Structures are given as structure tokens and as C-alpha cells.
């Protein structure tokens, strides 16, 4: 699509949406949000970018192939689950640390995995469809 308004707006909106998606991801444990919703927002952002600038440009911008992102997300989630084995706990048990009073744990890492899977999967689909056009 060749529209200066869209291209210009997309540049700003994509960045904002990606930032917002990270915000959703990180706040998910206490407020509405989480990896799945965050992933959907990020995928929408990338899609918007692709509509405005073409899939090739978006592919260049994200550097890593969307399929790789999806598979990497599954790997991250599994690693987050396996981490529990270090202390002999069952698979997917949450491990927590409190640097400076902020609770950080393997569930957050797991949520990052969910986020990456959703971004990767949706992007895989829409890129394939767009390129096929």
C-alpha cells in the first residue's frame, strides 16, 4: 500500500504499540495484561508496519524470522519450566528472587515465552498471506 499518511503514522504507532505490548506483558502478573495479550498487540504492531511499508521491510526490521521467534518462544517456556529442576522441584514450579524487593520469577520468563510464541505464530501467518498476494 502506498500512502504517505499511513507510512508516517505507522512509524510512530508501531513503536508505541510495541512499547505498550511490553508494558502489558510486564504488568500482567498484577493487573490485566500478560504474555498472550501483549503478544497479540505486538503482532498487530508488526502487521501494521508490514501493511504500511511492505513485508520485506518489516522482515528486515525485525531481523529474526517469525517462525524462529515462535519456536524460540516454546524453547524459552520449556527452559523456564526446567529451571525448577535445579532445586529439585517438579517441572514448571515457580522459582522466585527479590532483587530490591521486586519479585522476579520463572513464571515471568514463561510469560515471555508465551509472548514470543504469539508474536511469532501470528506474524508467520500474516506475512505468509501478505507475501502470497
Amino acid at each position, binding site marked *: 500500500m502506498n500512502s504517505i499518511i499511513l507510512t508516517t503514522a505507522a512509524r510512530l504507532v508501531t513503536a508505541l504499540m510495541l512499547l505498550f505490548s511490553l508494558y502489558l506483558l510486564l504488568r500482567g502478573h498484577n493487573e*490485566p495484561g500478560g504474555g*498472550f495479550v501483549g503478544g497479540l498487540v505486538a503482532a498487530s504492531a508488526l502487521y501494521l508496519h508490514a501493511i504500511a511499508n511492505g513485508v520485506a521491510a518489516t522482515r528486515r526490521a525485525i531481523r529474526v524470522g517469525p517462525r524462529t521467534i515462535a519456536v524460540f518462544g516454546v524453547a524459552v517456556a520449556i527452559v523456564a519450566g526446567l529451571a525448577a529442576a535445579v532445586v529439585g522441584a517438579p517441572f514448571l514450579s*515457580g522459582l522466585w528472587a527479590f532483587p530490591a524487593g521486586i519479585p522476579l520469577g520463572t*513464571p515471568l520468563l514463561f510469560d515471555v515465552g508465551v509472548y514470543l*510464541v504469539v508474536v511469532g505464530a501470528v506474524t508467520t501467518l500474516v506475512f505468509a498471506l501478505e507475501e502470497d498476494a
Partner: protein
Amino acid sequence: MAETGVKARGHPLGWVFVAFSLAGVMVALSLVTEVSSGVTLRLSVPWVPSLGVQLSFLIDGLSLLFALLITGIGAFVGLYATAYMSGQALTGRFFFYLLAFQIAMLGLVLADNIITLFVFWELTTVTSYFLIGFDHASEQARRKAWQALLVTGIGGLALLAGLLLLAAAGGSMELSELANAGEEIRSHALYPAILVLLLVGAFTKSAQFPFHFWLPNAMAAPTPVSAYLHSATMVKAGIYLLFRLHPALAGTPEWIWTLTIVGAVTALWASVIALRQTDLKLALAYTTVMALGTLTMFLGSEARIAIAAAITFLLVHALYKCALFLVVGCIDHGTGTREADRLGGLARAMPITTVAAAAAALSMAGFPPFLGFIGKELKYEGALAVASEPMFVAAAAVIANAMMVAVAGIVAVRPFFGPAVATTVKAHEAPLRMWLGPLVLAFLGLVFGLVPPYIGEALVQPAVSAVLGQPETVKLALWHGLNLPLLLSILTMTIGVALYFGHLRVRAALANLMDRLPITGNDAYERIKGGILWLAKVQTAVLQGGSLRRYLFFVFAATTGGVGTTLIIGDAVRWPAEWPVIPVYEWGVVLFVAAGAVLPILVRSRLAAIGGLGVVGSGVALIFLFYGAPDVAITQLLVEVLFLVIMAVILLKLPRFVGQGHPGRGGRTRDLVLAAAGGLVMTLLLLAVLDSAMSVHLTRFFEAASVPDAHGRNIVNVILVDFRALDTLGEIIVVAVAALGAFALIKLRAGRGRSS
């Protein structure tokens, strides 16, 4: 043949296999004294304790005998294979399969827990599939391997069902405890079902009639594999199971008659077919089936002497059968053929192989002083002691044994003696690693025959005690005195030798007769397989005709019909006693949603129809918001937006409705009825759900545990990433795989006409 250079030394994994087998032999031998004094060794590791599943093993006389055969024969087979497989492709893979198979087999005979037994049982099925189909470039080999996998795989399923029922009836998952619960199991209402299922499992694995056809077909495997599968392992697994379950199941008329008749029919039928073969390997294969039938026949009995006969024959058979298979491999290797009619006078060119073959054949035919003779005497003694029909069993044993004598002659006398026949490859002796195994195994048959009391005490007696579940005394001896068994032995020899000398004529007559058979096991298998494939094709054509409309119709019709029927049968149709007050703005959203749902029916533009569905989705998201589920509302809204955009992209690429794409008037009526029924059933379902009391148990738990245990206040997300993270993991894997699948489909379509 690359007999020189690096390859001739054999693949390193081959030597690993040999070393592993030898180590196994050493361990097993070191346990013989202890076990034969009546000790049972156990090892148990919890696996799934909540289900009574343990990784438990036991070593008693029976499992030790099998373990000795598996490792001992494995060592010689491995040694043989290092030479036999040299110069062939993928030798490393071959030895890997062989090792995996051996370990599975050892696990099977040592297992105490039924689930452990079943897992190893299935592993032998899978690994033997790889071994039989090792020559994967040949379609024949692939088909035969597949056949073995299907037949034994179906038996495996029956076995699993039978074992679980057995555990329910006997009140334990441990075979050693089930052995003591025999009374209970035999008088249990489920006993007939247990018996049938377990016997199907054992009979398919051990190639009993009418499942015998897969075994000779498994000859597609490389010769060392055939030798191993047939002598000590795969096919003996079913026999092992019958031995192991003997204390729990044996003694009822059902057991006695099923095993006696199936065993006798298998033994006789197989020995007849064996006589008809010209391929040495195939003739041997059928004698294996014959041996398995004989073992089954004797296992029908509870008489001590019959079990002793079975155990002794098991040992005899393992030794000579492995030796003879390896000998046939040597012949094949040395002459380039294994057709009985094209061989003769090899004794001069292959002296060592000749000696090995002769010794093995003498044991097979049951000449004194070989162990085979003792085995045969015991068989007759056992046959006369069975409770069912001694004369029937004895007669079956005599006929089968006589044919065995003849086959022994065909395999081990005819190729080596008489006038020399020219072969394509100039006959030459096999290398050391190939003749050593058959020679040692054949001579073990002789050595064991010379020290029968020792063998009886160290190997046979403990195994018989294990099978019968109480200490038994078994004495083996070469000379039993002038009695009926000896007379039967002499009768056997006479008939056997006569059959050997007339075997060319007998073979022609048998071939003539068998060609007139209406159906063989193999035909039946092919027909059943063809029938299943036909059925699959027909139902696929009906249910999955390629039209998306039809798929959806079946999905919705099945759901509506299934849920509706359940609601009516379960008497769960409810009407709320009082309607809640719904505020006006919520009514507004409901109308909004309803309008969105009606729109796609009225418009012809697909884009407008998709837009209507978007309205439905957004309305539902609003309802979620009203009822305090912001997480679900956000997700719903985002999914809805993405769905709309993606659908729009897809729709742009679709052609307009053409031909069968449009449902037509009748189709629209049908769809309308289904949609109305679906909506009605869904409404009733929701009303039924609302009517039943909601359990607040879980809600309370999550409210209480969310912050202290998982450090999160958003319970929905805490459940997703912590409490029920395994579910989420499954879901994201599905999402990733679905995306990859869709990607492949899209690219496949796009790839048409393009190269990339």
C-alpha cells in the same frame, strides 16, 4: 565382498554389542548358583507410585534362563554380524537397533511390574520392526516389516488390556504377586476375557496359528537378525509370557484346551509347510513356528514333566536354531544361494561349517547323546503325562518331530554331502567370526547333552520351579530305560528318515495340495488390511469431501446432536425459575450482537459478512467487560481485530462464489435448521450449567494462594503462567505448530508454478 582392510574389522558399535552381550552373560552366569538354590532377586524403583506402576524387576529361574539365552546367543550373533554386515551401508545403525532390541528383550524377561513388561514388550515390537525392515530400499522388506509390526502391535494392544484386567482381578500390578493369586483370578468373572486378551497378545508375538504368517515373512531381515529373533528373542517373548502367567492362569479347561489345540495345530501345520520349502532359510523359519507350537502345546499342561520338557526344548531349540540360521548365512555367503536344490557336496569346500551344521542338525533331529535327544525323550514323557488328551499330544509331537528330522536332513545334510553342484560363486569357507558362533552353539548342544544332570539342576529345575510356583525337582538323564518314550523316539526317527529320503516327492505332493487351499493366513491379512483401507477411503470421501461447508456441517451437526442427546438423556433441560434483571444498556449490547449475527446471512458481500461477525465478537467482549473480566475482554477484542484483518486479506484472494461454492436453496434451508438447532442446544446447555451449583472450592484456593505463593494479584494470569502452566505450555506449542502448518499450506499453494 570387502573382506580386507578397515571394514573387515567390523563396525565399532558391533564390538560394543558383543562386549555388552558378554558382560550380560558373565552377570547371568554369576547368578546361576544363587538362583538355582531358590533365591529370587528383586530390584524396584518407583515410577508412577500413585498408579501402582513401578520399574520393578525380578530374577528367578525362568528369567535367568531367558536372560542367558538372550545375552549368550546375542554375543555370537553380534560376532557373526561384524563379519556378515561388513561392507554394507548403515552398519552402525544396524548395531544400534540390535543393541536396543537386546536391551528391550532383557527388560521384558526381567520385568516384574506389568506396565514395565508391557513397555519393553512394545519396545521389542518397534525395534524388531526396524531390524526386519533394515533393507529399507526394498519394498518387500518394508511391507514385511510393516506386517510384523501390525500383527504384533495389535497383539500388544490386546496384551495391555488383558494385563490391566488381570491386575484388577488379581489385585496387584506385580507378576510375582499375581502368581500367588491364581485361585482368585481363575474364579473371577473376567477370567475368560483376561485369558482371550492375553492369549491374543502371546499368540501374535509367538506366531501361533492363525497369526503364524508374519514370522516367515520376517525373513526379509538380515540373516543374523533372523537367527537372533527366531532362536532366543522376539518370538520367544510370547512363550515367555505364557510361562510367566502359567501360575496365575493355567489349570482351567479353557487354558488347557486352547493351548493344546492351538499349539498342536501350529506345530503340525508349520512342519508340513516347512517340508514344502526349497529356500533353506524359509524351511528353518517354519520349523521355528513348529517349535513355538510345540512349546505352547506343552504349556497347556500343569504336569511337572511337561513343563520340564518345554523348558528343555526351549534351550535345545535356541541352540540349534541359532546355529542353523547362522550356517545358512555361511552357505549363502560362501556360495551365493540358499536354494536347497542348487546346493550339494559343500563338505569339501566348507569343512568347519559342515561340522557345525551336522552337530546342530543332530541335536535338532534328536539323536543321542545330544541335548536334543533328552529334550525329545522329555517331550514324549511330558506328552503322556498331560491331563487333556495324552495320545493326541503325543501323536502331534511324534508327527511334528518326524518332520523336523526330515528338515534337519534337508538343511544340514543335503547341501554338504552328495555330488557337488556348481554354484555362481565358487564355494568357500566363511571367515572365523562367522563359523565360530554356529560351531560353539552346535557343540554346546552336545556338551550339555553329555552332562544332563548338571544342566537339569542349574538351568531347567529353577525355571520349572519358577513356572509352577513351587520348588520342583527335575532330573535330566540320557538313558531313561526301555520305555514308551524311547519307542516313540525310534518311531520318530524311522518316519523322519523315510520322509527325508522321499522328501522330493513329498514336497511336490504338498505343493500341489497347498496351492488348492482356499485361503492362507497371509491372504486373510491382506484382505483385512485392504478392507480397512477401503473403509477409510469411503468414510473420508463422505466426511471430508474437500468442501469446507461440508466439514463445518458435520462438525456442527455432530456437536449439536451429541450435546442435545446428552442433555435430553441426562434430563438436564432446565428453565430458570426467575429471570435476573438486565439493565437497558446490556440489552443494547445483546441487540447489537444479534444484529451482527444476522447480517452475514442477508448480505452477499463476504467482506460485509466478516464485518458482521466482527460486530458479534466485539459485543461479546463488551459483555465480558460488564461482568468483570477485563483480561478476557482485552484478549477477545484483540483476537477479533486480528481475525478481521487476516480474514479480509484471505477474502481478497478468494474467487467469487462459483459452482458448488454456493449452497443453493435446499442447502440454505438445511443450514438454517442446523444453525437454529445449534443455537437452541447451546442455550439449553448454558442454562443447564447455570442451574447446577458452582463449586467455589477452586476459586477460594486461587484467591488465597495467588499472592503468597505466586506473588501476583491478577489471578487469571497467575493461573496461566504458574498454577496451570503445563496447560499453557501445551497451548503455545499448539499455536506454534498450527502456525507452522498454516505456513506450509500457504507456501505449498503459493509454490505451485514457482520453484522456491
